[in-house]
């Protein structure tokens, strides 16, 4: 068992390498297929020193064959060199890492919210199939799945910040205050509520509906009847026997939706002026800071690959029935 799991992990790791390679090749192709000089894609629309442009041309070996150029690019990415932003006069990787914390805080909170509330709604719904709660959940899930996150964000801001004045509309911290200690965290928390709500909705909807159907499936199985026949308390049957089995597909789908989570985060950050990678992306588009756009794409693509790998491994550990290929 242990040895087989180990082999499976190695097998999945080996699958990751061509994917990472593929992502870098795609990025490389985009740089080269973009209209105009590929150097423009790497420098952006910002005046760069002539020496740098010359060095970049040599680095890229634009007079050399495409495979040689690809090799150069691969080496640069492998060394963590995602280019240089002349608009900000700093390496791209540093700029992205600086913003990553804010994005992870927002996305992580939304993710947690979607997991806890979505699964809870799904369970309630499955226990009272075709009841009022069930119908309400179904309708809410459908709405949550169809509403564009950035519009939802704007509506929440209109209602709770502009209209009622309950929560701050913009940013991550109050600019005029110098909070310390607990107040500091409470301040961030207050700023976090609306963007996290907006971002979580779509995933909450997916989780609720998925939990509902997989719970209904699990509760209809024979081992549930057996558990009940043994006289186990109903709560234990539902949570220990039903939910444990029903959660597997939820875990998978949540892991596989990480790309959508980052995309949603970029949109929500833009609405709320949240100082994360998404807002950086938005600002870089308007300043035509292409190196940052390329860098963010590579980082998100790698994050998605890693998230998929972790999901598969989590699944392998959680589900003893899995066949290790």
């Amino acid at each position: 068992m242990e040895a087989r799991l180990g082999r499976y992990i190695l097998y999945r790791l080996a699958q990751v390498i061509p994917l990472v390679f593929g992502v870098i090749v795609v990025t490389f192709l985009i740089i080269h297929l973009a209209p105009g000089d590929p150097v423009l894609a790497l420098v952006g629309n910002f005046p760069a020193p002539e020496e740098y442009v010359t060095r970049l041309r040599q680095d890229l070996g634009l007079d050399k064959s495409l495979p040689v150029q690809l090799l150069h690019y691969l080496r640069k990415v492998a060394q963590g060199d995602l280019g240089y932003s002349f608009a900000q006069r700093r390496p791209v990787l540093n700029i992205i890492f600086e913003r990553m914390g804010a994005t992870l805080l927002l996305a992580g909170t939304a993710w947690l919210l979607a997991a806890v509330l979505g699964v809870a709604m799904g369970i309630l719904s499955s226990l009272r199939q075709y009841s009022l709660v069930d119908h309400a959940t179904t309708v809410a899930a459908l709405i949550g799945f169809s509403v564009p996150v950035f519009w939802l964000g704007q509506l929440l801001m209109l209602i709770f910040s502009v209209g009622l004045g309950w929560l701050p509309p913009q940013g991550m911290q109050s600019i005029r205050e110098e909070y310390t200690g607990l107040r500091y965290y409470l301040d961030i928390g207050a700023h976090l509520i609306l963007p996290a709500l907006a971002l979580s909705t779509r995933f909450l909807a997916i989780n609720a509906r998925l939990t509902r159907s997989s719970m209904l499936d699990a509760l209809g199985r024979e081992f549930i009847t057996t558990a009940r026949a043994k006289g186990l308390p109903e709560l234990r049957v539902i949570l220990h026997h039903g939910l444990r089995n029903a959660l597997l597909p939820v875990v998978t789908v949540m892991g596989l939706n990480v790309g959508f989570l980052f995309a949603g985060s970029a949109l929500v950050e833009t609405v709320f002026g949240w100082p994360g990678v998404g807002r950086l992306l938005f600002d870089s588009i308007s300043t035509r800071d292409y190196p940052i756009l390329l860098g963010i794409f590579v980082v998100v693509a790698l994050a998605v690959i890693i998230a998929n790998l972790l999901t598969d491994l989590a699944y392998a550990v959680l589900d003893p029935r899995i066949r290790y290929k």
Partner: protein
Amino acid sequence: MLFSTRASVTSDTPPGGQLAGAEDPGIHEKGGWGTDRAVGRRLRVFWRRFSRSRSAVLGLGVVFFFTLVTLVATWVAPHDPTALIAQPFISPGPRYPLGTDNLGRDVLSGVVYGARVSLAVGFLAAATSTLIGVIVGAISGYLGGVTDALLMRLTELFQVLPRFFLALLVVALAGPGIGKIVFVIAILSWPPMARLVRAEFLSLREREFVEAARALGVATPTIIFRDILPNALPSVIVAGSLDIAQAILLEAGLSFFGLGDPNLTSWGGMLNNALAFLRTAWWMPTFPGLGIFLTVLGFNLLGDGLNDALNPRLRSR
């Protein structure tokens, strides 16, 4: 179907409807839809099943309504959506039902014309990605072997690429334009369809009618497109209608990031424009966003309804 894993980014999940109707003799017959009378009968059966669901009919109604708006936009829109026709920031009232924006443009006209962009991009992008997905999936599933392995690796690569970020990057570098937007969305959206069609083909190619065709010496392309494909169509139609919803959302996201076609009024672009004026004009974000929401909801309801009607064995509980 709507919430199935086919909406996911990557590889190891089976696409939602992959078992669709595999053992349903009513749908799976040689040559698919058969004679005209049989087609009529099938359509009646389909409609009876479809119209049983109120939400499906509602979805169809919403889609029909917005399609109609698109077709008659020039007559229904009171003004040119780009023309400065009045004072800025007039709140909704009898003269301007949805108000005017920061430049004094009519919001109602913008919403009407925005429907055109969303629906056109949604239909064209989904149609193109469906075409790519069907071709890749059909070849992969029918031929199997090395071809299948190679095509599936390619599909996996396209599935891990974060769609939204790649689309942004391409449009930012290549410059905005509605044709490019359709192309980018289509080229990034076909993998789930390819996996779905492949799964259908894997099960269908073992069936007797395919074996019979092969024994009769029918050419492979004919078997793929005339014998097997019609039987896979129900799943393709369902997935395609849900793809339209996703394409509309993606286009709105791109436009919201300021990368829409600058010559056209789109819902996402209007929301982008409204960002700076939330405090002054609540109507500026509210109505274009409502347009996106209702259209996407309509296509999702329609897709679910089609799924229940075309693949009755898969009815979600």
